[in-house]
């Protein structure tokens, strides 16, 4: 306790030096926290987009359906047997499910042609699972009993299509022969998921069976919504177990987000490297501070030794002083980090400067990005900052404590 008092008093002797050195640690912490928040926000937004607009929480398809996505998907349809439906309903946290037929086609409007993925859906149940219908900007979304195609805003712009225009979908049916679906554009959606705005179109399943030569009632992809996305991992395991031997594969939303996870992992490595580098500089700064303090206080060290303080206790005084700088840096860093993250997560910032609507490079996000919170990273850097300070002080503290008391007092 006595040592602590000395250390705290020492901390205030050269205030500017203490603050400047603590500032280096604080900067490392602030940068880390903001980048962490940015990445958490990015990931969260991507997850939301994938869950709400692309693949829901769980999806079921035949094993070969997910394996090679470019091969004829219509061959991989199945009928929803009673048993399968019961299995789906039995999932813990089950809310609802929808079945769809997915296939590749080329959309043409006269002179231009563009490859798209067609999702032939059941409009009613689909809207319970995915929210694409909420983003309609022209016309209306599909409803049961009415035919028509819903396309994304970017596709509409590129092909200069409007509601009511004619389109042709060219595709290979289940037997492999070329066939077409023709009709009018019914609606245009503009979602925060860029892929849905360009290369995915929606069609009413009940009208698709004939042209696709698929038996009525069959589907090749089932999307399931649960009450909580964290249940998906366990639910997938259970469902796989119940369906084993039937040739069905089950994926959860995390499987659809592999690229996001890889990106996040790469970003995290980078962030830790940057944190590490700045902390190294902070560590050297602290080593330097301890050396300077020891040099300044040679006489004091000699005096303390003469008064009977052990080497260990002197090391303790210096280490405590350095830890104090670390604590100060961590506190300042976390406070400013907290403020920045709070601003960022409340107000967000527009990602339009990243190319806006045209180019998103395959990342499923658009629009405004809000920072995410990750409380444990606050705890982590807080402790880390203090620890680095403590560690960096040990060697110079030992060096200082080793000084011969007589020589130290006599130095001048």
């Amino acid at each position, binding site marked *: 306790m006595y040592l602590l008092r000395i250390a705290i008093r020492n901390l205030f002797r050269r205030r500017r030096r203490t603050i400047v050195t603590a500032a280096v640690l604080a900067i490392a912490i602030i940068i880390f926290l903001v980048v962490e928040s940015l990445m958490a926000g990015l990931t969260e937004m991507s997850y939301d987009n994938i869950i709400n607009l692309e693949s829901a929480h769980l999806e079921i398809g035949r094993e070969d359906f997910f394996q090679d996505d470019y091969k004829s998907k219509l061959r991989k349809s199945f009928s929803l047997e009673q048993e399968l439906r019961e299995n789906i309903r039995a999932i813990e946290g089950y809310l609802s499910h929808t079945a769809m037929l997915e296939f590749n086609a080329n959309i043409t409007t006269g002179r231009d042609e563009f490859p798209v993925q067609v999702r032939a859906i059941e409009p009613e149940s689909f809207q319970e699972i995915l929210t694409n219908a909420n983003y309609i900007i022209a016309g209306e979304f599909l409803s049961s009993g009415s035919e028509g195609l819903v396309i994304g805003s970017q596709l509409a712009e*590129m092909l200069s299509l409007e509601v009511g225009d004619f389109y042709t979908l060219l595709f*290979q049916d289940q037997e492999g022969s070329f066939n077409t679906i023709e009709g009018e554009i019914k609606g245009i959606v503009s979602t925060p998921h860029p892929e849905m705005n360009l290369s995915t179109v929606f069609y009413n399943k009940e009208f698709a069976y004939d042209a696709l030569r698929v038996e009525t009632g069959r589907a090749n992809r089932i999307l399931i919504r649960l009450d909580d996305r964290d249940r998906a991992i366990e639910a997938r395991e259970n469902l796989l177990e119940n369906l084993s031997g039937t040739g069905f594969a089950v994926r959860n939303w995390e499987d659809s987000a592999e690229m996001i996870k890889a990106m996040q992992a790469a970003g995290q490595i980078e962030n830790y490297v940057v944190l590490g580098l700045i902390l190294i*500089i902070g560590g050297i700064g602290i080593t330097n501070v301890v050396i300077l303090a020891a040099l300044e206080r040679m006489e004091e060290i000699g005096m303390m030794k003469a008064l009977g303080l052990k080497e260990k206790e002197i090391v303790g005084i210096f280490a405590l002083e350095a830890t104090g700088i670390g604590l100060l840096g961590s506190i300042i860093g976390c406070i400013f980090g907290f403020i920045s993250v709070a601003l960022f997560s409340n107000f967000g910032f527009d990602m339009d400067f990243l190319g806006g609507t045209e180019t998103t*490079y*395959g990342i499923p996000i658009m629009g405004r990005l809000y920072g995410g919170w990750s409380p444990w990273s606050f705890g982590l850097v807080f402790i880390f900052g203090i620890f680095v300070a403590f560690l960096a002080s040990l060697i110079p503290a030992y060096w200082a404590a080793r000084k011969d008391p007589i020589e130290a007092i006599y130095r001048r």
Partner: protein
Amino acid sequence: MSFLLKIALRNITRNKFRTFVSILAIAVVVAIVVFTRGLLLGFSESTFRLIVDNQSGHVRIINEEYKNREALIPLDQTVDGFRGEGLAAMLADLKEVTGVEHMLPRLKFGAIASPGDEMITMMGIGIDPGSEAEYGALTKDITAGRMVEDGREILVGKSLLDKLDIELGERITILFSDAYQSFQGRTFTVVGVRETGLKMMDEAMFYLPLAEAQQMLYLDDEATEIMVFGSGIREAEQLKENLTDFFVAQGADDKFAVLAWQETDPFIEYFQIAVRIYDVIYVFFILLGSIVLINTMIMIIRERTAEIGMMGALGLKSRDILKVFSLEGAIMGIFGSLLGVIPGGMITYYFSQVGLDYYADMLDDMEILIAPAIYPVFSLENLFISFLFGAVITTLVSIWPARKAAQMEPVDALHREI
């Protein structure tokens, strides 16, 4: 000056341990800067080269209207001569423009193949085998077989070949719409395989002789773009200007867009902004390291207050005192920067041989041309610039505490015993 330098040098050796720590701090930050710059240079160079070699050339010439509709791979907005006189004549004219070294006319079109019963969409690119071989970017990634020569031969991306489920030497029927929108098919022999390691290209692209493509699409003597190469990437702006002038002189500047490589993809622009931001980060980093130097100097000055008073009393002007102390700081900074360049250079050299590819996974689904592994650039220029960064910034920084020493009144300074 040499007298002041002598004082500064002597002062530095007065407390070697303290000096060493300051030098070490500077050395560490400079080493980090060397490596980061090398990494970023490596990343941008390889990425830019990919874009230049495969997508844009140094300057890209396309039809003005093609620009906004490129994703559709349209065939009705082509490059067919300044006034429609044909591609060959246009190329011959362009060859005379100053700075033009290579020209690669390319004809891109959408195609599908359905081996068995799947439908696979691809992009066909008609190329001029002669000029492509001369430039070499396309030929160097051929891993099996040979370049297309003429007739119905194709060079196919490795993953596309797997998707099509065929082997080198086998034949495949490709379906496409010609310039008049009629659907056609033609059978080709695979004579070569190209592997770049980039999914975007390997999985979707095949190359065929330009003459064959022109003939089957009914686009005689036309192409969708011309990639123009000058002597180097840095001369691209100049080359663009020369070409633009030439197009204006021909009265064809409305019809065609002449784009320097960095204008062809907005990604490059962001990248270049990022590179500039990094310059600020280096400065910031070195400043952080300089805090150690400042702390040390403040202490030195405090320690030597009496000495400063004495120097003043002996007739040294405050400018000289400023010089003594900033020289001391500058020497530490310069020495530290020099010392930092060595480990920084060594690490950079090591990775320039081994490469870094920790982010390759995420590129699978990305729709950008990015090099799958980074090989940091080890260059003396980088070492020198990083050294300069360190030396200049630390020297400037050390003036600040030195000024305090210079501003002291000799009488007060002498009086203030510690």
